[in-house]
């Protein structure tokens, strides 16, 4: 299969869906001629024009609010939020308005929009350009949340998001924009709520989201060399969450590590770990371990930044611990 970058995959998904549905449009800062600072959208304004690839002033709450109203009245906005950290600016429009429109109107109205943004540290961008804030929106009922882990998912999940009649937030991993992966030429969609078993294993389950899927896969390789068979699962969407796949694996392996790049406390790892604990408790041989990003603002200095995010080595180390039942003594 041909290989394309995550950036190209996003671009293709957008182009295909915009061709399919004339009510779609992209809105955000420097999305048109510049094609975003990451150059993800290059070529789209040439095909679809400035009426459908709309450059905005630097007014995130404003264009997010505009998108909500547009979505409520018959168009399908695809909002481009340059950095995931800016989500703090648009929380009101996203969470008080878009997320609740369908419910508050008793099902009469809806806000079918997509918010594309990103996550991920280690780009030397410091505390306000490096956050992974997907847990925040996952906490708010009414929003779906997708976390593509490769070019393949980026394309398939985005296409599904655009066709979804609900507000969907999709976080791309900034560090992965130039990473290539096999992506079919022919059209495909990836359904929401369907986890992907990236690697089959029998001893331990590594659940990774977004950027951490690769980390888990690398950890699994390290472990394989040591004779430990790790299963790696990518939930792909955290709302809805495919509990069944996660639980089946947990029941099979009896040991689970959940790895996510958001801050560990009050984040995604706690939710996934809790669901497994609640529903597979009597199958577990050890506590579900969580590995999130450190609970510190992301530091600029490379010497510090790199140690805030889980690494394959750290995951493997914890896996070994779980396997050796060292945890018993720790508890």
């Amino acid at each position, binding site marked *: 299969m041909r290989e394309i970058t995550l950036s190209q995959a996003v671009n293709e998904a957008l182009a295909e869906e915009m061709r399919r549905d004339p*009510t779609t*449009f992209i809105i955000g800062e420097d999305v048109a001629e510049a094609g975003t600072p990451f150059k993800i959208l290059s070529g789209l304004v040439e095909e679809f024009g400035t*009426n*459908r690839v709309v450059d*905005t*002033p630097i*007014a995130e*709450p*404003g*264009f*997010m*609010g*505009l*998108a*909500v*109203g*547009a*979505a*409520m*009245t*018959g*168009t399908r*906005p695809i909002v481009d939020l340059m950095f995931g950290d800016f989500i703090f600016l648009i929380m*009101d*429009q996203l969470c*008080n*308005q878009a997320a609740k*429109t*369908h*419910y*508050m*109107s*008793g*099902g*009469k*109205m*809806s806000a*079918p929009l997509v918010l594309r943004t990103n996550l991920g540290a280690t780009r030397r961008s410091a505390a306000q350009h490096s956050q992974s804030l997907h847990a925040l929106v996952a906490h708010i*009922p*009414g929003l*779906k949340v997708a976390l593509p882990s490769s070019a393949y998912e980026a394309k398939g999940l985005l296409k599904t998001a655009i066709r*979804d*009649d*609900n507000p969907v937030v999709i976080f791309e991993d900034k560090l992965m924009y130039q990473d290539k992966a096999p992506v079919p030429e022919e059209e495909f969609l990836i359904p929401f709520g369907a986890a992907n078993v990236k690697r089959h294993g029998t001893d331990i389950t590594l659940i990774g989201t977004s950027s951490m899927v690769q980390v888990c896969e690398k950890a699994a390789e390290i472990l394989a060399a040591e004779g430990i068979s790790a299963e790696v699962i990518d939930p792909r969407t955290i709302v*809805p969450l495919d509990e069944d796949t996660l639980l089946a694996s947990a029941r099979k392996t009896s040991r689970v590590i959940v790895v996510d790049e958001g801050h560990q406390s009050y984040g995604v790892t706690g939710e996934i770990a809790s669901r497994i604990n609640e529903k597979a408790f009597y199958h577990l041989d050890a506590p579900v371990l969580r590995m999130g990003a450190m609970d510190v603002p992301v530091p600029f200095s490379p010497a510090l930044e790199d140690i805030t995010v889980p690494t394959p080595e750290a995951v493997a180390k914890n896996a070994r611990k779980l396997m050796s039942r060292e945890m018993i003594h720790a508890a």
Partner: protein
Amino acid sequence: MSPANPPRTNTEDYLRMYRQMVRIRTFEDNANQLYLSAKMPGLTHMYSGEEAVAVGICEALKVTDKITSTHRGHGHCVAKGAEFKEMFCELLGKEEGYCRGKGGSMHIADQSNGNLGANAIVGGSMGIATGAAFTARQLGKDDVTVCFFGDGATAQGLMYEVMNMAALWKLPVIYACENNGYSEYTRTEEIAAGSITARAEAFGIEAHQVDGQDVLAVNDLAQKLVARARQGEGPFFMELMTYRYHGHHVGDINREYYRSKEEEKDWKENRDPITRFRTWLVAEGIASEEEIEAINAKVKIDATTAVEYALNAKYPDPVEVDMHVFTDVKHTLA
């Protein structure tokens, strides 16, 4: 009143405007009664006194034109065409309400008439209104959107963000600032520096101030601006000088610490939009006192009937609690 250049040329239109104002006032009187008799859950914000604003503007709109409303939203809802029954059912949290009881007074919406809903976030609907206008441009429709909001909402930065975009893109949206002199318990002067219309003008948006107690003046201006917005000459800004008769919400009874009884009396007795319009209608020979009284009586009966109906109507079934979280999942928590 503004006798020159009457915006509507036939009796029917005038009487409908009058009737709509009376419907709003009557709706509010009943809602207030429901609160006072502890039959309504929660609090609500009365529109009484501001009827000429909602009616003057909404009478200039088509059904497919959109409005966004506020926490003080019953007036906009009625003026844009809603029915008493579904409105009272919503206020009481009943299944037959416009939002199946899920929204209540602060989120009442009536999509069939283009009312995109009340909003409990002050200024929260400014983006939505601008977006609705964007849709019209995008889909090549000639719909106009009116964004209602209070003077207090002009403090929200969102307004400036969306006015900038509306001006840049010439969107068919009209920002209608209902300046009733107060934000909750604070006088507008104390929390708004400079000039409200100048703020819109600074973005290149044509802005007008108008007497919000004069339904003909409001309607006249609205007709002109709506027509121009429909032609692509928008956006526009209207500042409507008005007054709320009740407290900030139904529970705000002792309000002398922030405004005097004399001030309230003056507005009610000397500038009431319904009385003024009624006097004009009679003076111009458009309606007799009897016809007016008949309209009033009919509206009163309609309201009483709707209230009765709503009081006896069903609450939503508890199983509805996890419906409508998502469009495509019947019961999210099932």
